[in-house]
């Protein structure tokens, strides 16, 4: 089994929005994208065709990076959390409106190493790339998902075999998803972790996996201007002291290759 990263067309494509549904605190946006297809973990740079700008503080201006959460039936799905002017505009898109899309971009997840079961660990809207990953994994895969509260935790219904943790204990385990992960790994270390979520969560996952010597692939996030390696804006420090561009060297990067995961390298908290 192997997923090859798809190559994007070298221009923004106007794609039509086909649906926009509420899922707890999030929005599941669907766009018509027949050419599509992508590896789990790849992302697209999206901007509304109309009214991109003129929001809070006269923004947005640059496109926004969004993980492809699903690709099926000629549609790409995105899971969105409204955290600022860009996501706010994308969250209000109505069917029939169009988005400019550049993608799919970046290096996605590699299949788990032979003999290791995949364990998906997501935090908040960071579950997006895990959705498509779970779709692509042959066997059912356990997903450990952490959310701030119950409203957000409703997004857990988008995945299968889920164990939930919430900060406020309103659903599932009260505490962090890293605690759930520790339990799982203490039972069975023959796992490979696939994680995406806020910086502190990713750092906890990285540290834990490093300690328990479990391989982990982390889907990072970073403030991005371009998404295709042009601006050198999205770097995170690698273990060897160099900088990696999240958009072309990632977004999925082996935990081993990374230094500490910083505050800005994760999904919205």
């Amino acid at each position: 089994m192997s997923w090859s990263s798809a190559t994007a067309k070298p221009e923004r494509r106007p794609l039509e929005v086909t649906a926009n549904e509420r899922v707890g605190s999030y929005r599941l946006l669907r766009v018509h994208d027949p050419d599509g297809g992508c590896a789990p973990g790849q992302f697209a740079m999206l901007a509304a065709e109309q009214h991109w700008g003129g929001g809070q503080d006269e923004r947005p201006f640059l496109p926004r990076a969004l993980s492809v959460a699903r690709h099926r039936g000629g549609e790409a799905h995105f899971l969105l959390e409204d955290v600022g002017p860009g996501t706010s505009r994308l969250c209000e898109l109505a069917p029939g409106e169009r988005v400019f899309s550049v993608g799919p971009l970046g290096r996605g997840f590699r299949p788990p190493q032979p003999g290791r079961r995949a364990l998906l660990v997501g935090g908040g809207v960071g579950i997006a790339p895990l959705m498509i990953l779970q779709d692509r994994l042959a066997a059912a895969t356990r997903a450990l998902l952490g959310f701030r509260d119950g409203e957000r935790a409703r997004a857990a219904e988008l995945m299968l075999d889920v164990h939930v943790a919430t900060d406020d204990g309103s659903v599932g385990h009260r505490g962090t998803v890293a605690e759930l992960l520790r339990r799982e790994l203490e039972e069975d270390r023959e796992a490979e972790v696939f994680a995406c979520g806020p910086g502190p969560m990713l750092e906890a996952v990285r540290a834990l996996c490093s300690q328990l010597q479990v391989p982990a692939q982390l889907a990072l996030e970073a403030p991005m201007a371009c998404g295709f390696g042009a601006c050198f804006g999205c770097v995170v420090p690698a273990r060897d002291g160099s900088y990696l561009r999240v958009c072309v060297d990632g977004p999925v990067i082996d935990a081993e290759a990374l230094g500490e995961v910083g505050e800005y390298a994760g999904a919205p908290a």
Partner: protein
Amino acid sequence: MSVDFCGLELAHPVINGSGTFDALAACEAFGAGLLEDFPFAAYVSKTITLEPRRGNPPPRVWEVPAGMINSIGLPNKGLSSYLANDLPRLAGITTRGHEPGGELRGVPLFTNVMGSTAAELRELVEACDRHEEIAAVELNVSCPNVQTGLDIGADPDQLRAVLGELRGATGKPLVVKLTPNAADVPACAVAAEEGGADAVSLINTLRAMALAPALDGARARPWLGGRTGGLSGPAVRAVALAQVAAVAERVRIPVIGMGGVQSGAHARQLLDVGASLVAVGTESFRDPGAGRRIARELQSER
């Protein structure tokens, strides 16, 4: 629509701004076809320095109204690695110009270099001169993200003197990329011309700053790892137009105009005030096909 620039033939007048398009990375994202039908008529490299540079710590970008601030800090592998590893791959870039069926032409390579002394700059220029894959050299005397470079570009006398020292190092077209953070930019352009530049390019980014969203009660701290950065995008377009117009009036050498260009109409305005070529920077981040699109729009404008 093909144009002559300092004796080089370009498929159209739209090129990229230095540091805003990485042809090799783009090739990974978009496939090798990109280098066969490149969106720009010439390819300008990111700024290359003698020694490798890591660049500034993140975060490196910040979005502002109608633009962005970058504090990238000129990361690059250094001259030798650029020449040994990148140059061979960049040598054969071609383009069909602004339309799918256009004639296939070579995409000349402009290497942008920066040094903190005239000697360093001369060494960089000499090295470029020895490589025939390099069609032209652009001197970055203007990048506001780094301590060096800035002063040379903002002071006409110093600029003229530095150029005098390195002009002899190459017969290739020498483009001086001016700094916009100067009291009298046209005077700097005239100094570049007197120093022997074959062309000038402008504008580079405007010195700018961003603060991180402040936590309750706390004093806000700089957001960018490099503390300050450079402003680009539509926000600077009217400043660019003024500077390009003022420079084009004063020099006889060709001018490469840039700053906030998003469309053929914007490119057209720079050409109308006297630019010979137009470079696109930030807009490529919003649309990797911006170069070709703008060349196409420019064609239908005429």
